[in-house]
C-alpha cells in the first residue's frame, strides 16, 4: 500500500524541483508586480491602495502608447528577420561543407557577447564622427557628407533593429540547426530520388517538419524582443525625441523616478501583451499537437 502511494507520487517528485523554481522565480515575482501595480507606491508620497488608478493613468498617457507602438513595430520587423536569417544560417551549417565545426562556432559569437557590449560595438559603427559606417562610406561611397545614422526616427529604428538581429539570429540558427538534425535523412533522400530540387526539398519536406522548432524559436524571440532594453539603453536612450523608447525603458524611467506602482503597471501591461501573443502562437501553430 505504502509502496503504491509512493510510486503514485513519483512523477510529481520529479517535477517538484522545476515547479518550485517556477513558483519562486516566476509566479511570485509576477504576482508581486501585479500586486504592487494596484498601489499608489511612490517613494515620496503616502503609499495607498489605488486599485486600477495606475492603469487609468497609463492608458491615458500618449508616451505609453508611443512606446508600445514602437515595441510592437520592433518585434514585427526584427523577429521575422531573425527567423529568416537564422534559418538560412542553419541550413548552410547543416550542409556537408568543410570547416563546418568552426563555422558553427563562429556563428555563435554574436549570441555569446553580452548585449550591452555588443550595443557599444554598434555605437562605434554608427558614430557620426569616427564610426565605421561613415568611414566606409567615405572610402568606397560617393563623396558625400557623413550620415547621422541615429538622427532620424527611421534611422534609429533601423540601427536598433540591425544591432538586435545581428545578436539574436545566431540563437535562432542554433535552435533550427538542432531541428534540422532531427529531420530524417531518408525523407530527403526519397525526395531526391523523386527528382525534387534543393528548394523543393527545403520548402516541401524540411520546413513542414521544422515547424515545431520554428514555433519555439518564434515564441522565444517574440517574448525576448518585447522586453528589449539593453540595446536601446546603450544605443539611443530612447532618442531621438522618444522615437525608440520601448515599454521596458518607459517602465524603467518610472522606477528610477521613484514611482514603483506606475512602473509595475507598465510592466504588467507588457506582460499581458507578451502572454496573449504567446497564447495566440501556441493556439494557432498547432504547437501542442506537434509536440505530443
Amino acid at each position, binding site marked *: 500500500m505504502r509502496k503504491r502511494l509512493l510510486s503514485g507520487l513519483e512523477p510529481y517528485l520529479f517535477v517538484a524541483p522545476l515547479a518550485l523554481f517556477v513558483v519562486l522565480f516566476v509566479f511570485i515575482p509576477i504576482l508581486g508586480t501585479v500586486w504592487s501595480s494596484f498601489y499608489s507606491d*511612490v*517613494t*515620496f*508620497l503616502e503609499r495607498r491602495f489605488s486599485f486600477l488608478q495606475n492603469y487609468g*493613468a497609463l492608458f491615458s*498617457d500618449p*508616451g505609453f502608447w508611443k512606446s508600445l507602438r514602437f515595441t510592437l513595430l520592433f518585434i514585427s520587423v526584427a523577429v521575422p528577420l531573425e527567423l529568416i536569417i537564422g534559418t538560412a544560417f542553419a541550413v548552410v551549417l547543416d550542409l556537408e561543407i568543410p570547416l563546418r565545426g568552426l563555422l558553427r562556432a563562429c556563428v555563435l559569437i554574436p549570441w555569446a557577447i553580452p548585449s550591452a557590449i555588443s550595443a557599444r560595438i554598434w555605437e562605434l559603427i554608427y*558614430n*557620426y*564622427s569616427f564610426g565605421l559606417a561613415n568611414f566606409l562610406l567615405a572610402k568606397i561611397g560617393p563623396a558625400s557628407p557623413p550620415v*547621422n545614422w*541615429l*538622427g*532620424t*526616427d527611421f534611422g*534609429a529604428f533601423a540601427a536598433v533593429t540591425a544591432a538586435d538581429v545581428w545578436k539574436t539570429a545566431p540563437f535562432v540558427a542554433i535552435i533550427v540547426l538542432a531541428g534540422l538534425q532531427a529531420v530524417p535523412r531518408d525523407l530527403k533522400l526519397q525526395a531526391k530520388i523523386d527528382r525534387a530540387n534543393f528548394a523543393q526539398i527545403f520548402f516541401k519536406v524540411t520546413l513542414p517538419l521544422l515547424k515545431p522548432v520554428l514555433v519555439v524559436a518564434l515564441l522565444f524571440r517574440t517574448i525576448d524582443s518585447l522586453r528589449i532594453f539593453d540595446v536601446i539603453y546603450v544605443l*539611443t*536612450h*530612447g*532618442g*531621438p*525625441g*522618444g*522615437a525608440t*523608447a520601448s515599454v521596458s525603458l518607459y517602465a524603467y*524611467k*518610472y*522606477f*528610477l*523616478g*521613484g*514611482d*514603483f506602482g506606475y512602473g509595475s503597471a507598465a510592466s504588467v501591461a507588457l506582460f499581458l501583451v507578451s502572454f496573449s501573443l504567446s497564447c495566440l502562437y501556441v493556439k494557432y501553430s498547432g504547437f501542442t499537437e506537434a509536440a505530443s
Partner: protein
Amino acid sequence: MKSLLKLAVLFPLLISACSKRPAELVFAVGGAPNELDFWETIAADFREETGISVRILRQPTDSDQRRQGILIPLKAQKKDPDVFLMDIAWIPQFAASGWLQDLDAAGGVPVDTAPFWKNIVDRSDRYGGKLVALPVYVDAGLLYYRKDLLKKYGYAKPPATWKELLEISAVVQAAVRKDNPEFYGFAWQGAQYEGIVCDFLEFAGAKGGLRTENGRLLAATPENEKALAFMRDLVSKYKISPPNTYTEMKEEEVRLFFQKGNALFERNWPYAWGLHQADGSPVKDKTGICPLPGFAGPDSVSTLGGWHIGLSKYSDKPRDAARFIEYVLSKKVQKELSLKLGWNPARRDVYGDPEVLKVHPHFSQLRKIFDNAVPRPGLPYYTQVSEALQRHLNAAVSGNEEPAAALEAAQKEIDAVAERYGGGK
C-alpha cells in the same frame, strides 16, 4: 545526491557567512577608477584618524545606475549604505521620500554651513526646514574657448552674447574648415538625457527657464521658445554645431570633440578643464574659460550641478556617519579633492588657497560662476518632469517637432505629472 545534500546544508551557512560583516560604515560612491581609488585613500586616512572603518561600495560612472544602486536599498529600508553621494537633481526626491537624516541632528551639533556657498546650500540642501545634504563638489556650466584661434582671427575677447558667438563661429569655422573639414563652431550637449535640460536652462537665460507661477511650473513661455528655436538653428540653420549634437553629444562626447581640436567653443562642466590641460591634450594651453553668453549680454545663466553627500535614515551608525561626512567636507580633504582629482570643491575657502591656485589658476574665475549658478526645480518628481522635457527638447532640436509645439506638449505632460504627484501643489 550526496554532494547535493552537502550543498543544501552548506548554502545557508554560506549566506550567513557572507552577511556577517564586521561593523563598518558603508559609503556608496561611483566614478572613474582613479576617483574610486581616491575615495579608498580617504577612507583609509579616516580610519587612521578615528578608528572607524569605512567600506567603499564601488558604483559605476553612469549616474542613472548610481541612483538605481542607492534607491533600491533605501526603498527596502536596508541599513547599508549609510552614506552616499547624490547628484544635486535627486536630492528633492530622496528628501521627500524621507530617506535623508537631518544632518544638524545626526552629529549631535548643528553643522556649520558657513564655508559653503550659501546659495547652493539654501536652495539645494535644505528640504522642509532640515539640512538633508551637503555639497561635496560643485558644478556649473561654462563656456570653453580656443584662445589661440580667437587671437588668430582678431577677436580680443570671448563672446558675451549668443549673437557674438554666432558671428565669431561662422567666420572661424569657415576659415579653419579649409584645413580641418570636421571643424565646428560650437559643441554642446543635445542628446536625449539630463544634459539637454541643463543646456536648455542656460540658453533660456535669466528671463526664461522653468519658473513657478501660481504653483504651476512653466515650460511653454516665449523666452523658452526662442531659446529652443536657437538650439535647433545652431544645428540646422547656422550649422555651427555638428549634426550629431542631438544624437550623441553628452558631456564626454563634447569634451573629446573639443579636445581633438574640432570646435572653437564648448559648453561643459568644469571637469573638462583638467582634461583639456593634461599632458598630450592637443588643446593644452590653448583653452580659456568664461561665463556662458546670454541673449542680451549680462542675463547669462549657468545650471548648477554637482554631487552632494547624504546620510541614510536607515543607517545604524548615524554618529560615525556624521563624523565621516564632516571629514569629507573638511578643508584638508576638499583641498585634496581639487589637487588630486581636479574637482571643484564645495568649500569656498579652498578657492583662495595659494597652493590650490598655483595648480588651478582658473579657480578664481569659477568662484564667480558658482555665485550665480541656478539650480533645477527642486521638486520630488523632477525626474518625471525632466523625462518629458528631454524627449520634447530633443525632438525639437532634431527637427521632428516645432519648438512651440514641443514646449506645449512638454507643458501638458508636466502638468499631468504635477497633478499626479503634487496633487496640484
